[in-house]
């Protein structure tokens, strides 16, 4: 029974993967990322830093933004399109639960993103080696953390797309990304907060919203400040937990949705 459930999720994931790799948005974003990584050679020349450091920073930032664009524009449209084009009915009339459908979609999109990141990383590392840089483990870990961050963003965009229209879900997903990166500021604000309710409210927001800055280790790579391996493991666990939380909420909401 359990094997059958996993098989259904796998089949939906495979279909989603096939569907997303046919999406033109993916190739447009990939083209711009490759162009930006190649252009970063010139940007690196302008900086006060050694060009390798700038190249690393620029490359990782580009990959992060590309992941965000893909997560939002492909992730949000996925569920909405299934509903609006009525293709969803062909799936849920079969012995497949809605939760399996959501999990399958998530897994498919995550696989597409993994493949995209593999392609972007290859391009990025080749450019780096061409410029005389070396491939360090910390650099690969940074890419892995970006992918983990995007897995959280995708789960959040699926959650928003079960709640509202694709347009609003895209907007909320982008806002979620921005708020997640600004969450670090809340910890600073908490120190200065006064009163009985305000600091508690800030603390609640700080713990409810994921702190996406935990996945950002670009500055550490640029300055060569080595983070302990435990940090990378914890950050991955943190990403998995948030993804699980959003996915579980999406399953509950999608299950209760009147289609």
């Amino acid at each position, binding site marked *: 029974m359990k094997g059958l459930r996993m098989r259904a999720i796998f089949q939906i994931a495979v279909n989603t993967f096939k569907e997303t790799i046919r999406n033109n948005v993916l190739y447009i974003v990939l083209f711009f990322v490759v162009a930006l990584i190649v252009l970063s050679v010139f940007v690196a*020349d*302008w900086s006060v830093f050694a060009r390798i450091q700038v190249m690393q*920073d620029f490359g990782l930032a580009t990959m992060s933004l590309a992941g965000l664009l893909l997560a939002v524009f492909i992730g949000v449209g996925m569920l909405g399109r299934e509903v609006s084009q009525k293709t969803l009915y062909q799936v849920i009339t079969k012995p497949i639960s809605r939760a399996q459908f959501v999990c399958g979609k998530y897994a498919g999109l995550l696989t597409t993103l993994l493949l995209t990141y593999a392609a972007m990383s290859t391009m990025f590392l080749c450019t780096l080696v061409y410029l005389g840089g070396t491939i360090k483990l910390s650099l690969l870990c940074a890419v892995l953390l970006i992918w983990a961050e995007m897995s959280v963003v995708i789960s959040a965009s699926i959650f928003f797309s079960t709640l509202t229209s694709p347009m609003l879900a895209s907007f909320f997903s982008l806002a979620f990304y921005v708020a997640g990166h600004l969450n670090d500021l809340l910890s600073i604000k908490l120190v200065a907060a006064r009163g009985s309710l305000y600091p508690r409210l800030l603390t609640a927001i700080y713990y409810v919203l994921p702190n996406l800055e*935990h996945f950002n280790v670009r500055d550490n790579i640029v300055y060569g*400040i080595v983070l302990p391996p*435990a940090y990378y493991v*914890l950050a991955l666990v*943190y990403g998995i937990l948030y993804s699980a939380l959003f996915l579980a909420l999406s399953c509950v909401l999608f299950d209760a949705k009147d289609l």
Partner: protein
Amino acid sequence: MKPPRKILAFAVSFAAIGALIFAAQNSLTSIRSTHRAPPSMAFVPQSDKIKPYLLGFHTAYADYLWIRTTLYFGSEYLSGGQYTWLVRMVDLVTRLNPDFYPAYEFAGLMIPDVCNDPDAARVILERGVSSSVANKWKLWFYLGMIYYRYYDNKKDAAACLARAVTQPDAPGFRLAGVAAAMFRKAGAPEEGLEFLSFVYATSENPEVKRYVQGKLQAFTKAQ
């Protein structure tokens, strides 16, 4: 009535995930606080050669760089750092936006001591006094102080203070006294006398005239 088992299982799972997230969040924050990198300087350009590529947004970029500069200064101050990039950043801000007064003031007050680089501060301030910023008298004053304190060049210091007096909004009568005293210390009392006479003749403010007249009498008596 008992809640259904499914809801109970969900509630327990959410609570467990929440607790784990709380623990992971705190651990990650604590590790990051001990391995904190300074704000990235990777996108600080090497020179103002990028100005044409900024498509007219060079003043906006200067504002952004200025924010980065203050963040960098703060992080270096807290970590007891060497302020390696500070001079270059302030220099760039003033090159991209030559009318950016706070950067000049920062250069005059902080760079000589903090970065131990009075030469850089002098160059930036010289750019400032030839720009069209307001409060220019302060920049001439800082420049004078740099000549006096770091180069032991009282004559140039006095000349800078004399220039400060002639700027709009300058506290003329106080500065005039300091400048004249500086000329005397530099071994050029006649230039100090000439300067005081000039201020007395050109000033329209009766209070300044009265103050400078007193200084002139004291100056002549001392000679």
